[in-house]
């Protein structure tokens, strides 16, 4: 827990030390020591713009400043300023080189998508191993077979097969979902019989509990 009590963050303004909120000053000092001592030479002469994160009192600020300047040979450029502690510590993770691609979402999928800007007409077949994006409608009689997910920026009236290579995590999105048939992996589904209500908002089809489920993907609609 005490591991990340102190984090160094480089910004375009300069170097900041971020202090974890709930840590007391002694833990912080101990942590600083742990981080800086082994590479003291490296830190010598470095300029610290200011502290962020934990709210410091004037005393604490002066104390830390003294430690940093005397013990480690760095200079604290900034001064005690209440406002600079508004930032939350968590948002200042140092980006280590191998963490550069860590985005704050789940379900991030990276690949090469096929981008088609046209309306697919009856009888036209698209087969692709990755994701497919159609900027246009998919007319009845058209067939899309994708290894990945399929995004249709238009009305979907044809047959779409996502996750054709067995990926049940693939999904299908359309502005208006009026499919002839939807397939994900090897699960096939069609619209309920009878002219159902024409739902005019964008929907997403995905596999839930072994079935293909269609629902709005924007929560408020």
């Amino acid at each position, binding site marked *: 827990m005490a591991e990340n009590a102190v984090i160094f963050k480089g910004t375009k303004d300069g170097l900041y030390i971020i202090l974890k909120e709930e840590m007391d000053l002694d833990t912080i000092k101990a942590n600083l020591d742990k981080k800086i001592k082994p590479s003291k030479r490296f830190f010598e002469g470095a300029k610290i713009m200011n502290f962020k994160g934990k709210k410091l009192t004037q005393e604490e600020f002066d104390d830390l400043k003294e430690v940093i300047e005397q013990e480690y040979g760095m200079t604290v450029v900034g001064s005690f300023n209440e406002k600079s502690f508004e930032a939350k510590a968590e948002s200042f993770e140092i980006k280590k080189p191998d963490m550069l691609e860590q985005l704050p979402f789940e379900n991030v999928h990276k690949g090469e998508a096929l981008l088609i800007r046209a*309306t697919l*007409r*009856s*009888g036209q077949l698209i087969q692709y191993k990755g994701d497919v994006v159609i900027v246009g*409608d998919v*007319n*009845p*009689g058209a067939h899309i077979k994708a290894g990945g997910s399929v995004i249709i920026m238009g*009305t979907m*009236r044809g047959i779409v097969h996502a996750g054709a290579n067995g990926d049940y995590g693939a999904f299908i999105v359309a502005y208006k979902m009026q499919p002839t048939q939807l397939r994900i992996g090897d699960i096939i589904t069609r619209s309920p019989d009878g002219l159902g209500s024409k739902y005019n908002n964008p929907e997403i089809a995905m596999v839930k509990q072994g079935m293909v489920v269609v629902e709005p993907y924007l929560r408020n609609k």
Partner: protein
Amino acid sequence: MGEVIVVTSGKGGVGKTTTTANIGTGLALRGKSVVLVDADIGLRNLDVVMGLENRIVYDLVDVVDGVCRMRQALIKDKRYPNLYLLPAAQTKDKNSVNPEQMQKLAAELAEEFEYVIFDCPAGIEQGFKNAIAGANRAIVVTTPEVSAVRDADRIIGLLEANGLRNPMLIINRIKMDMVKRGDMMNIDDMIDILAIDLIGVVPDDDFIVVSTNRGEPAISVEQSLAGQAYRNIVRRIMGEDVPFMNLESDDGFFNRVAKLFGLSKKR
């Protein structure tokens, strides 16, 4: 160089031949020199609809095979001196010609006539490929039925793949009272799927049966509603802005159709 138009549909029986006969006659009535070419080899009926079936000596395949000259095969219409017909062969089939031969034929005809109109057979195979080979414009005919629209969509895709962009749509045999009741597809839905410019809406008209049997295209008859619709289509082909006919007494739908008028702007 004249315009080479192909009238196609995908689905059979939606009114390609009737449309070809009426548009051709209509253009001739407006003083243009027109030749109609029946590309439905083996199942010819443009000659019947035009009333010229007993004047056929040579046909399309004879011309392509070099058995006769083009002039010998062309039949002058019995009513209009500037309208000609190049009939199909009845005893051969669609493999008797290939697209290259049709291209050459179309080019030759375009030098002589202001409008060359090909009546395309149903389907998407050799007959279709032959008929579209020489064309630079396409008219897609469909009826307000899901099956016909599905086929028309396929055809439009094939036309675009063969370089015939921006085909024009004719919706044929529409029954306004059924559309009002919701029993028949309405025009908006069809255009939503097909997404091409609408050039005309022709109402279902019993008189078409009569005119086909007589060999006199309905366009020349004043009382026929379908004929009136075809007259308007001809004017639009020639570049005029013509408002769509009010095919029913109820204002509601007419206003919507009038809104589609914006789609009828000629390119």
